[in-house]
């Protein structure tokens, strides 16, 4: 229980850092940086979901993880094809670096857990992660995207992330019962 609480607090702190960094930026991110942030955010969730698929025996959690792998991989495939078509080289930024390093930390924390404790921590993390991603998407990525095709890609995928959040919240409620 204490372990889960510490993990949840660590996840919240990590996302607060990402959001604080977003607000602290004076120049808005470029399209190349936005592409990298989007790809990194998807990759982080894919990695965690793959680990969840291996560690959990809970059918609902396994299905959720499979959906995360499938959908986030699809977004990344489309994003990668688009930047190639546009001739844009995705560029790292503090946000993408933070996402990656926080993701690595979360992976390590989740790796140490098993069974029901793992399921709860994974789903709690998915709720926090998708809330943070939606915030960054709505407040930073979509409003600052200049290229119309990249904007279409992000906006068209937005309901997918919102669905993930809803799905994760439902699972969170059912797991807590």
């Amino acid at each position: 229980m204490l372990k889960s609480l510490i993990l949840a607090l660590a996840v919240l702190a990590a996302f607060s850092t990402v959001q604080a960094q977003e607000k602290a930026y004076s120049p808005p991110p470029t399209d190349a940086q936005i592409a990298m942030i989007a790809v990194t955010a998807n990759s982080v969730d894919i990695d965690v979901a793959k680990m969840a698929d291996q560690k959990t025996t809970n059918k609902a959690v396994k299905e959720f993880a499979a959906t995360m792998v499938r959908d986030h991989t699809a977004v990344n495939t489309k994003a990668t094809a688009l930047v190639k078509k546009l001739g844009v080289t995705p560029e790292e930024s503090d946000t993408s670096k933070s996402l990656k390093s926080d993701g690595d930390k979360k992976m390590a924390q989740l790796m140490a857990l098993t069974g029901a404790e793992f399921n709860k921590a994974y789903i709690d993390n998915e709720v926090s992660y998708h809330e943070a991603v939606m915030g960054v998407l709505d407040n930073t990525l979509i409003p600052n995207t200049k290229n119309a095709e990249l904007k279409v890609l992000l906006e068209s995928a937005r309901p997918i992330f919102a669905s993930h959040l809803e799905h994760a919240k439902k699972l969170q409620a059912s797991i807590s019962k």
Partner: protein
Amino acid sequence: MDGMELLKNDHKRILEIINELINEFTGKVKHTNEESVRQRPRMFGKLRETLIQHLEVEERTLFPNLEGFVDTRILVDECYRERKRIDEILKRIEKLPEETQLDCRDDLLAELELRVQTYLVREEDWLFPKAKLLLGDAKLEEIFSRTILSPLDPIQPKRST
């Protein structure tokens, strides 16, 4: 041809109309001013009618069958919302007086194009693949066979039950 392919054909048609409309307003087609002004209400009408018919087919086929899934409920809601946004932009463009600044009109046309593209991409990239995954080909065939499989043909009014 399956129902999903017919919906994708609708999308191509919608994009064609949008491009015609943008070309008309940006002067890429050679009409006299009078002809242009005469063409515009017809083109807006065609776009609106095509979008309405397309949505009606989806309302009778895909949407009711996808609203119950957590993976697609928000996607379906967003399709409805996007249609409203498109309609609002169309109304704003239609209301613009002829002497309106070109920049203002160009901004609205760019917004219209973005919203339509987003609507179509969202369906083709997300809604249709998820429909195939969640409902399966057999169920989709059954759903589409129960409705008119020619989305751009006149749609029969919905029957009240």
